[in-house]
Every structure is written in structure tokens, then in C-alpha cells.
């Protein structure tokens, strides 16, 4: 009975999104390279924060390992970039991200959320150490050069495409049974199990999906650096920035994280330019301010004060749950 409204419900945002992305694709012909580099930062953070929130928003499992996947993507390009055609390299990167996410997911996601947080917290350090060890002992070169014929504009377009795919995926997910399962798990995991949902499998599936987007972002961004080493590729600051952005925007809505990405990317830009030595302190302070003053993110504020269809329980920050069984 609702087929028509369902369709327009679906098609309208997709068309609107397509128009916006088509317009954004013309950006390189309008602005100079400084603004292009800013646009690349914003787009890449938009992908990372949205992908982070896709998993951590509904499940409330906080992942502190964004940069692990990002760095693995970058390393895949550094290792294979000159051997294989770029699209094949991207596929390899996605595969590497999938394997690692499956490993992490199956060993931690059947346990209470706090185990997952701890595991992801240290994972960056682990992967960085292992990659360093491998490079020093096996290849005997700590860093790698990436010389690929990929321009800044190419990177921007690739990121924009990836962001479009991610948002479309998120949009479809929000209307799918998988997305619904995820919302039920976020509400009450025990109920989800007794409704016939294979909770671990759903969580792992989403974690892998989110990790693949992070890995691809790292792979696409790699040519921008020309030189990478483990310290550059696996910088824990990146995971931290992504969490702040998603929390500022509101991690439980598809477009929420992007609302946090734009102001914070600009803020970070100003901070790195003016306080290069105090960047970490400023970042910490910004983060604390958001955690204390804006627990529901910008979207939460909007819904609390005057937005349409207010939820009865304003979106809190994601919470881990205790294991009940």
C-alpha cells in the first residue's frame, strides 16, 4: 500500500545526493591547490568518521583503531603500487583490511565492549611495531617511496567517489534488515539474540564493512605522501581525530559525523599552522569540551532544541554494554 511513498522516500535523497556530488566534482576547476588540499582533508575525514560511526554509532563499541586500517591501506599501495594496476591495488587493500577486521572482530566482538576498546586501543602500537620489525629485519629499509602518476585532483575525485559509495551504502543499510538488526543490538543485545539475530555475525559484518572503507581511504591517500614509514602511516592521532569528529557531529545519524568533520578539519588546520608544538594539547582539550558539553553531538542538540521528530531519548554518546550472559 505504501509502495509509491516508499519509492519517493528512497529516490528523492538519492537524487539530491547525486546532484550535490556531481557539483562537488567540479571543485578542482574552481579553486587553487591550497583549497584542494583542504578539500581532500575534509573528504578523507568525512569517509573515516562516517565509516567509524556506521559501526560504532549503533553498536556503541568504540573503535580506537581507525588508523590501523588506514595505514594498512597506505602500506598496500606502497608495497604493490608499482607492481600492479591501481584498481587491483585497491582491491588488495580492501582484502587486507577485511582479513584484519575479521580477525579482530571474531576475537573480540563476542565479548563485552570494553575488551574491544582495549584491543583496538593497543592495536595501532602492535601493527606499527610489527611493520617496523619486518621492514628493519626483512627489507632492511624503514621507509618506502611511493611514486605513482596520480595527481591531487585524481585523489580528490577518488575520495569523492568513495564517500558517495559510503553514504549510499549507509543509506541503504539504514533501510535494510542488517541495519535494523544493528539498531536492535544497540538497544538491547539480549533481546536481539532472542529475536533470532546472530549478534556476533552482524557486528563483525559491520565492523568489516566499516574497516574496508577506512582501508581504501588510506590506499587512496597514500600517493599524496610520496614517502611513508610506520610512524607516519600508523599515527594514533588520526584515530583520535576521527572519534572526536564523529562525536561532535553525532554518531547515530548517517550525516551526523560529516557535521563534525567540517568545523574540526578547519580547526585542526588552524591549530597545526599556529600551534604546531601544542597540537596534541589543543586536540585533547577540544575533545574534552565535546565529551563534557556536547554528549549528543551537534545533531543531538538540533534534535533536543526544536528539530522535527524529537526522539524521546536524545542520542547519547555511544556506550559499551556489559555482557549479560
Amino acid at each position, binding site marked *: 500500500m505504501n509502495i509509491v511513498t516508499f519509492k519517493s522516500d528512497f529516490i528523492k535523497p538519492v537524487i539530491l545526493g547525486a546532484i550535490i556530488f556531481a557539483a562537488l566534482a567540479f571543485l578542482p576547476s574552481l579553486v587553487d591547490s591550497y583549497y584542494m588540499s583542504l578539500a581532500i582533508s575534509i573528504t578523507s575525514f568525512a569517509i573515516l568518521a562516517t565509516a567509524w560511526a556506521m559501526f560504532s554509532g549503533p553498536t*556503541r563499541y*568504540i573503535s*580506537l583503531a581507525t588508523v590501523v586500517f588506514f595505514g594498512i591501506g597506505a602500506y598496500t599501495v606502497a608495497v604493490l603500487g608499482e607492481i600492479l594496476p591501481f584498481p587491483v591495488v585497491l582491491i588488495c587493500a580492501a582484502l587486507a583490511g577485511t582479513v584484519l577486521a575479521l580477525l579482530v572482530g571474531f*576475537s*573480540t566482538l563476542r*565479548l563485552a*565492549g*570494553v*575488551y574491544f*576498546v*582495549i*584491543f583496538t*586501543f*593497543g592495536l595501532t*602500537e*602492535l601493527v606499527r*611495531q*610489527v611493520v*617496523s*620489525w619486518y621492514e*628493519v*629485519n626483512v627489507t632492511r629499509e624503514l621507509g618506502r617511496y611511493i611514486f605513482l602518476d596520480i595527481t591531487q585532483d585524481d585523489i580528490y575525485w577518488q575520495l569523492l567517489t568513495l564517500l558517495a559509495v559510503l553514504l549510499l551504502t549507509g543509506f541503504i543499510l539504514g533501510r535494510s534488515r542488517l541495519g535494523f538488526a544493528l539498531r536492535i543490538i544497540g538497544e538491547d543485545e539480549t533481546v536481539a539474540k532472542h529475536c533470532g539475530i546472530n549478534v556476533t555475525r552482524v557486528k563483525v559484518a559491520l565492523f568489516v564493512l566499516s574497516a574496508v572503507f577506512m582501508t581504501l581511504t588510506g590506499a587512496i591517500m597514500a600517493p599524496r605522501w610520496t614517502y611513508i614509514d610506520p610512524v607516519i602511516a600508523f599515527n*594514533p*592521532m588520526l584515530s*583520535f581525530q576521527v*572519534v572526536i569528529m564523529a*562525536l561532535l557531529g553525532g554518531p547515530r545519524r548517517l550525516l551526523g559525523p560529516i557535521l563534525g568533520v567540517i568545523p574540526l578539519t578547519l580547526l585542526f588546520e588552524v591549530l597545526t599552522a599556529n600551534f604546531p*608544538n*601544542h*597540537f*596534541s*594539547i*589543543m*586536540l*585533547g*582539550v577540544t*575533545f*574534552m569540551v565535546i*565529551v*563534557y558539553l556536547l*554528549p549528543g553531538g551537534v545533531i543531538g542538540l538540533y534534535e533536543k532544541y526544536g528539530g522535527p521528530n524529537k526522539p524521546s531519548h536524545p542520542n*547519547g*554518546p*555511544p*556506550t*559499551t*554494554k*556489559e*555482557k549479560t550472559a
Partner: protein
Amino acid sequence: MLSYAVFSGITLGGMYALVAMGLTLQYGVSRIMNLAYGELVVVASFAAFVLMTSAGINPVIGLLILIPASFALNWAIYRILLKPLVARAKNRGMLEVDSILATFGLLFIVQGVLLVWFGGNYYSYDFMNSAVNVFGAAIAANRLVALGFAVVIGLGFYLILTRTRIGTALRAVAVDPQSARLVAIDVNFAACFAFALGGAMAAIGGVLVSMFLTFSTSMGVVFTMKALIVVIMGGVGNILGALVAGLILGIAEALVATYIDPGLTIAVTYVIFLLVLLIKPSGLFGRATS
């Protein structure tokens, strides 16, 4: 070489156990998952370094200053930063997430401050660096002193928890804050006290470690990670478990560093952590929760 590796593993493991005891107190009693915990360890290492190099106060005397100072600092952190989160949390899960996020922010602030003051280099200072012969292995005297202190302090801590009124109150809160309230235990005070005491343990660990290891501003995360793994291995809230788990971790690391490659110590930590997660997530000595 083996006896040297085992001994250095025991020293290291003793430090891990000591540091982890503080963390298990903060997490078990105060319900704060403190990701900035390792930063407090590193801050204490640097404080001991500054006292030694600029004021000529040796780290043993330094402990007398740093223990009360860190207790007060952590008391203040709990009162000012964490109390509002405790007050707004509707349940334990929410507090856990809020505390993870807030202390994650704190981590970057502390690390940033240290970086501004000390830069990214490795530091160390000379303290009782002469070798002593133990079972045929030449061991630096500072390691023996550190281990001795770890044993004495760990034991004292265990006795406080099991033999005193306040210790019993803390353990009661760890088991069930609601019921503890019913028997007239001031849960807020207990949480604050446990957090401060845990912070003091971190500081002790930091000072002792600085006697025999080089340290840098970026080592906090590694300490937090290892302490967390020891806490999980030993079972949350289990002091003896933390001791055994700390020793296992320390010895495993020392063996790998001696015989395979010092660059793989974190990998060892992680392999052990993974095994625990896969086989017995409630910890080596933890009971399965109902």
C-alpha cells in the same frame, strides 16, 4: 643468559603487576576505564628524573614526595573531571564509555604537555648502576632495589585491601556498589579514594621503572595497554591474579627480547592477550560471570 633473562623478566613483571594493581583498583572500584593511566606512570618517571638531575634527590627519597603528590593529583582528577561523568551516567555502561572518552582526551593533553617540555627523546639517569651478582648473573643494583620496593609495596597494598576497614569497604564497593551503600559505606568517597590510590600505584611504578629503564614521552600508551592486559588476564579486581599475570607477561617479554628480538615485545603481549580472550575471557583466575 637464561638466568639474566628470567631475572629481568621478574623485575619487569613485578612492575607490570604493581602498575596493574592500581589500574584494577581504578576500574574495579571506581568504575573508571582510565586510558590515561600509563601517562601517569610516565609523568612519575619524568618527575623522578627531574628530582634526580636538577635537585639531586634520589628516586627512593623522591617516592616520599611523589606518592602523596600523585595521590592528591589523582584525587583532584577524579573530583574535577570524572565526578561529573559519574553523576550523569545512567548506568555502568554509559560511565564506562564516558570515562574512556574523557581519559582518552586526557591522554593527549598529558602527552602533549610532556612533549612540549621534554621532546620525543629517550631519557634515563644514573642511580645505583653497579652490578651485583645474583645466581651467577650480573644484575644492576637499581633493578634489585626496584624489585624490592615493588614486593614491599605490593604486599603492603594487598594487606591494606584485605586487613583494614577501608580495604574491606573498597572490596565491597567493587563487588556491589548498591549493597555497599546499604551497609553505610560512602561509595562516592570509596570511589574517589580508590582512584587516587590507584594513581599513586601508577606513580610508584613510574618511579621504580625510571631507576633501571630508559623512558620517553610516548611510552604511556604501552604502559596502559600492558596494565590493561594484566588486569584482564588476572581477572578484574583480582590482586593476586594481577601479580601472577604481570610476572607471566614480564618473563615472556624478557625471554622474547633476549632470544628472538627486542622489537617484538608488544607482539608477545598481544599474542598472550589474544590467547586469554579466546580461551578464558574472564581471566586466568576470574570466575565466569552469571
